[in-house]
């Protein structure tokens, strides 16, 4: 490895990085957490959720898409950003229909865990109560758009990891919604399989494997045993979803 590794400062810690690495990737490699929902290691970053926004001087940038540069001073765990991240999380809640107590993803949901992490105690903003279509056509997989936060992880995972292009996002502004690349637009006619990364990567309860939702009792779910700021948690989540599939 390079002898004179470059570094930058993140909240008073020195973070080494190699050229071409983003602030997020360098921070995670150095076991430092920056809150995020639409980022997943190994999948190309997009920067749509904006939770990973950090400050460089007076500039706000998304850590997942901004390249690290030598000696920059990056702030992340400061009140201003925590407040903004909480407000962004609240926006994601009120934009969809997230009813945690009745959702089978509860306890395994990154949005819910993020809300706890950021000390979110209410929705703050008025609910939009959108009417969105549920797609239950696939024998093994649900698509419940009520809970979709448009993070596009499934879109990217399907393209990059599964080589399938099962998902896309269509529509402008609040009309933006997750669509399926099949002639009827239904999941059943797509080539999505439960083993695909796209079927397992959803951070919320929008894409769910059928018939396994309650196998793990509440109290033993991912975020009953882990905190969202644990580094490498993605592998725990994927392993959980894979085990669930295999047990089936």
């Amino acid at each position, binding site marked *: 490895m390079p002898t004179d590794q470059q570094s930058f400062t993140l909240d008073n810690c020195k973070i080494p990085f190699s050229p071409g690495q983003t602030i997020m990737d360098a921070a995670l490699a150095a076991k430092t957490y920056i809150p995020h929902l639409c980022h997943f290691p190994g999948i190309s970053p997009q920067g749509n959720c904006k939770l990973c926004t950090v400050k460089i001087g007076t500039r706000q940038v998304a850590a997942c898409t901004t390249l690290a540069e030598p000696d920059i001073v990056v702030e992340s765990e400061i009140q201003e950003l925590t407040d903004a991240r909480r*407000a962004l999380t609240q*926006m994601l809640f009120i*934009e969809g229909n997230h009813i945690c107590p009745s959702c089978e993803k509860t306890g395994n949901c990154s949005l819910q865990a993020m809300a706890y992490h950021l000390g979110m105690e209410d929705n703050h*903003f008025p609910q939009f109560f959108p009417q969105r279509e549920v797609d239950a056509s696939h024998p093994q997989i649900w698509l419940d758009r009520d809970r979709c936060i448009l993070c596009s992880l499934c879109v990217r995972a399907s393209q990059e990891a599964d080589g399938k292009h099962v998902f896309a996002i269509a*529509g402008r*502004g609040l009309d933006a919604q997750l669509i399926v690349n*099949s002639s009827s637009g239904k999941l059943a006619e797509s080539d999505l399989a439960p083993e695909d990364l796209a079927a397992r990567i959803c951070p919320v309860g929008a894409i769910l494997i059928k018939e396994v939702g309650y196998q793990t009792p509440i109290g033993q779910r991912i975020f009953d045993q882990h905190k969202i700021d644990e580094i490498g948690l993605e592998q725990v989540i994927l392993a959980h979803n894979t085990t669930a599939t295999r047990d089936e």
Partner: protein
Amino acid sequence: MQKHGDTPLKDHLLHTLHMIQQRERCITDESIHRIAAQYSLPVSQVRAVVAFYAFFQTEPCGDYHLFFSNCPACGYEQAGQNLLQMLAHKLNVQIGQTRPDGRISLHETSCIGMCDHGASLLVNGQPLTGLESASIERLANQIETAAPLHNWPQDWMHTDSAVHKTNLLLEDSFVPGAGLRTTLARGTDAALEIITHSGLRGRGGAGFATGRKWRLCKAAAGDARYVVCNADEGEPGTFKDRWLLQQQAERVLEGMAICAFIIGARQGFLYLRGEYRYLLPHLQTTLAQQRRQGLLGKNIGGEPGFEFDVDIVIGAGAYICGEESALIESLEGKPGIPRNRPPFPVTQGYLGQPTVVNNVETFWAAASIIVNGADWFKSVGTPESSGSKLLSISGDCTAPGIYEYPFGITVHQILRECGAMNTQAVQIGGPAGTLIGRADFQRKIGFEDLSTGGSFMVFGETRDMMTVVQNFTKFFAHESCGFCTPCRVGTTLLKHNLEKIATGHGTHLDIQTLRETSNLVQRYAHCGLGHTAANPILNSLQSFPEIFGQRLAARSFTPNFDLDAALSEARRLTRRDDSKAHLDSGY
């Protein structure tokens, strides 16, 4: 996949979809499948493109397809009457829908660049201007009697603009070919030096130094370079690019060719907003004429090996495509979602290659600067904003139209010269710009003070500024691309929040939330649309606090949820509307 220089007009995805929309009145799912197969694209990608652009419809539209401009500058809603609603009523059609007999569809749209012509609309792509209540009646008759468009009164089709004030650039007796001749004679480095030295900055409003942009593109590594003219003039209140393309397109195209020679590009694009599609025949004629004169094509100006041509790509109704990276996405046949920057288009633009994207007026000015020299251009303006600027003036003034002013001119002087009396507010640079009140009329137009892409909307003292701010806030919510959380959700929250205050249900708490949400959208959004979407609210909280204060409810809190309104369905079902079927207080 598209290759360099291999994107003829008819094959562009947006153009193909437009043709289908014209032919079949909508884009059906069968058409989407056919196009996906033809272009070897996933069906979902074609669906995403159709869903993104406002001019593509998946439900059949009427024989007459109307897009009525709801921009406050052109005055569709004034003196107690709303022309849009009047037309909807006359034609018995719901706004946003097609009449059951298929004769007419009536949609609202934002500014169509006819602000100096009064209330305006597009009918099957053709602008109708200067609408008044009397003409609404006649218009409805034309439609009901199925009169063909070419038989409609010609005075409705008036689209030229009056020029009220000229300066350096409009007074320049530019001879076609002179700019290219100078460029070829001086060579790329010296020509670039003239542009750099002139201090020309981007006329779209952002003001990036043009010489620097061209230099960065020239120096960037790539297999090909592209010149893109941004004619997606979507900022409400702006129409000077429309006028330039109508009147001086050859100078704009020559500016593009000069840029192409300097940076080493062979292919250019003129990205025209869908609302300006009617300019296409004129622009194609101008392109043909430029080719005949050796100002486009092969061996331009007799220079062996200097080859450059321009294709026109027409958008389909999306304000966001005025943002340069969204424009490039659209050029590539995709939804206009702004890219992450860096990399900037100068290093990775169209098809990932170095690309210069400049406004229509920037290329137009560059052509004159090359001929007349940097000092000529710098002889007017201010040290930070050299030269002159075209303004599109509209709203409450006696002489709306095109004005060319040297930078540094005060708002006050402009108001005097355009015949604006008893002005209470001016929106400079469109909704994304700055809203100022009387106290700020001594401020100056220029990048160092009031930056503008050219929009200058005047609001007289009888205007209800809350309506104006609400209109602009709705505009951003409608045009948000939906990519990032703060803009997608935040712009709609702002719209609702403002509505609550405007209808007298707001409290101080709602003002505080309005401010907080505005700041969040401004700071955390992905692109310029989000960064500026809260400007009308933040500016008016500053300059017109009374429009909020006078509407506040005399209590400390009112819920967002109107319980009495929620019972309306129960009342309807039980056919009751007596006092006992209502809660004591609505809110």
